[in-house]
């Protein structure tokens, strides 16, 4: 059986009058297994977000393909979206809905049967400890509670694939750790998780495999142990710099 997420030759070119063609993502290949956290590690502007937005069907690829549970993100966009949950620091919640209404709404529009929606919302309220705040409007919740509602919203329809785009940006240490704990829990449930970050420690701690992305291209993709063996360096930060310098040397530019 094919992997939950398969990305082949994914390319995104923006047209810019000042710079001409901008290859934000340039022929990216990777896959993500069920029960695996696949990390996309790169600096700001490396192409992580653009890659994940193509997988989430927000942006259309210029070339290449991405399959989510076998659904092509261009030809079967809705089916692909129903099979994934997308979370990023920029995906916000409706401020005037309560936590419970938010979960019910996203469960419903993601294809959960109408009769099952209230029960599913209740499950999520219990799982993420939202009980006391379930009927509080989102704009009245604390940052931590909003984060929980946001994660619960992402998995409202229990998708097999989860995409987290720099989920800890803007969070304090405790909330960031809580986020990492929840993501690890989803892995145990067998979900295929794509996780982008520029924070080395997060990638080290969470990811089963790591792809180092720089200037829209993946320059290395393996387990942390194999990356250490291939570069002879122990720390992920050193491994990352090693590949970036290599890429810049090949490309003849500066980072």
């Amino acid at each position, binding site marked *: 059986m094919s992997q939950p997420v398969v990305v082949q030759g994914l390319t995104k070119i923006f047209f810019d*009058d*000042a710079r001409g063609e901008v290859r*934000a993502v340039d022929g990216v290949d990777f896959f993500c297994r069920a029960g695996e956290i696949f990390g996309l590690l790169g600096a700001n502007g490396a192409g992580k977000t653009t890659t994940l937005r193509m997988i989430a069907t*927000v942006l259309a690829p210029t070339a290449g393909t991405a399959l989510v549970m076998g659904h092509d993100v261009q030809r079967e966009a*809705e089916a692909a*979206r129903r099979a994934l949950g997308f979370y990023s620091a920029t*995906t916000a919640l409706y401020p*005037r809905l309560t936590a419970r209404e938010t979960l019910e709404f996203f469960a419903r529009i*993601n294809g959960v049967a109408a009769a099952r929606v209230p029960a599913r919302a209740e499950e999520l309220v219990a799982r993420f400890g939202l009980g006391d705040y379930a009927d509080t409007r989102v704009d009245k919740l604390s940052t931590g509670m909003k984060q929980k509602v946001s994660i619960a919203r992402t998995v409202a329809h229990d998708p097999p694939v989860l995409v987290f785009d720099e989920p800890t940006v803007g969070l304090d240490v405790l909330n960031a750790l809580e986020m990492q704990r929840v993501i690890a829990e989803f892995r145990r449930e067998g979900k295929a998780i794509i996780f982008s970050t520029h924070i080395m420690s997060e990638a080290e701690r969470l990811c089963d495999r790591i792809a180092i992305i720089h200037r829209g291209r993946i320059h290395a993709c393996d387990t942390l142990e194999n990356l250490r063996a291939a570069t002879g360096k122990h720390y992920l930060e050193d491994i990352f710099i090693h590949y970036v310098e290599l890429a810049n040397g090949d490309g003849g530019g500066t980072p």
Partner: protein
Amino acid sequence: MKVDWSAVAALFRNEMRHLLRDRRTIVVSIFLPLAVIPVMLFSSHWLEQRRKARLEQATFEISVEGSQAETVCSLLAEAERMQTARGEAFRFRETAVAVPLAALAEKRVALVLRGVTAAEALVAPTEGADRPERGAGRAGARARGEEREPIVEGVPVVEVLFRADRDDSQAAATTMRRLLREVRTERRHAVLVAAGFPRDPATVLPVTRENLATSGQVAGLTLGRLVTALLLLFMLSGGAVVAIDSLAGEKERGTLETLLTSGVGRQEIVLAKLLAIFSVALLIAVIQVANLLVYVGFELIPVPAGFAAAVPPQVAALLFLLYLPVTALVAGGLLLLSGYAKSYKEAQLNFFPVFLLGVLPALAPLLPGVSLRSAVVLVPIANAAVAVKEILVGVFDWPLLLVTLVVNSAAAALVARLSIRALSNERLISPAAAESEHVTGAVAFQRHVLRNFAIMWGVLLVAAANVTTNADVRLQIVINLGVIFLGGTLLMVRAYRLDPREVFALRPVRPVVWLAVLIGAPAGLLTGVGVFQLANHFVPVPPEMMEAFGEAMLPEGLPFWQVVIFLCVAPGIVEELTFRGALLHGLRKRFHPGVLALVVGLVFGVFHTSLFRIAPTAFIGIMLSAVTLLTGSIFPAMLWHALNNLVALGAARFGVPLEGLDAPPLVAAALILAAAYWILWRTRCVYPDLRPGRGRQ
């Protein structure tokens, strides 16, 4: 396209829930207008009643002066006698004052009656510090459409001097004029009778006026002229509350990306949002109309005497049916506006021009003689406005009512489709795509070009209204072409630091292109006439529109060489630099070439501000845009444009009515035009840097 209606329902419920929980919006958009308008109307009505009552009961102090003061006093005595005989109170009291005009200025008297000889009346009055504005009594009267009565030598004149800036003075002057005229008529009749006139002079040659329209039809005409514009105002203001929050607000909050990454399709999202805007716009329109009816019922809003607009239920249902696609179109337009704005604030800024543009077609019933059985039936919103007016006066043109419904429904569907496309436009929905742009002069020009042309259009309208209305045609052309078009265009080139050779497409062309232009320009003009004649068979085209083709504005007394310079050469050069130069260059990446030619042509048409010239000039503009796109150069369009005007002028000068031509020459012209375009196509040197096709993206 299969629509998931359960998802649409869930999205719609979410939209409405989110809206209804925004207390500030509800208060500002619904409760405040509902509460404030009655209070305002009630207060103004009450104050007006009080003012009237006070003036009706007041006795006005007046002063009489002048060499013929005695005549005035005798007139006043007679007026008092007449009023007393009718059982009315004479409410004027003469007061002796030293300087009557100063007393009027100091509010010690309400008016001054000045009896003078004809010779004195003909002398221009001297203006002084204490002198009341004579204009208030003379020019002011003319401004209200009253004519100054002729002064006859030997006959005394009574001048009623008053202050139009004072209620009491104005009321006193109005009553006094009426009384003096009654006295005059009485005296005139007495003189006639004394001279042996055989009967009562008041009964001579009675003129009667009989209105054959029912009171309902008369009221229907009044109502029908304005009701659509009024409803549109309510719909636009009500729908905008939801629309702006709907897409622009979602973008700003970040909830749009959450929605776009969910399992629901974009058409469902747009449909739900459209439904929400549609429902709110309709609801607010209904509430406000009910509100107005309540005010009318309580007589807070005065209606004309005998106003009896009766709308039977079946007519009301028909009107409602006609307004449904209009509401959908309004909702679609508002959603599109919101979709193209990157933030809430930007949507609010863009709302005002859309508001004005939206209401404009609803004013179509105010055009004299406009009927649904004309080209107006093809203009969305305007057709519904005219249809409603006709229905309210009892005219039911069923086939064209059906066309109206179809046209507005199609326009609403088209706008909805554009909204779905806006949700797929990566530059509008994705910060990553938007951030990839670096705004340079050329990019900024492309973004601002339509806005800049809208400003230019505004300047043109202001100039047309204030400066050039009665000016010499040469001055008009210098202002329009030289100052507004050329000046505005060069200003843009300079402000955005553009390369004039690129902007104005100053490129050489192959020699064979000139042949195509020489045969194409006259053929194009005649083909335009033919197209509109053909359209006339299906939908009546106003004769003014047909005449606009031949209209050459032939100014009298201008040598023909000047006519050629000002009306052929100058427009050929300047209008081409402006429209097929700057405008086409600025929009070249925004639209696909076919749409680009249409848009540039339409804008060109709109700049010819006369209503009936818009369609013919837009037709020519589209042809000229196609020529520029096929040749990649401005020069062929310049020659084509100049030749087009020359042929029209020549026809007008030599008395050849283009609109009266028969089918054979028109068909021949169409074939020649096709041949000209075939030459241009075969030798094409396409305009560079056009919007890439889907394949290239």
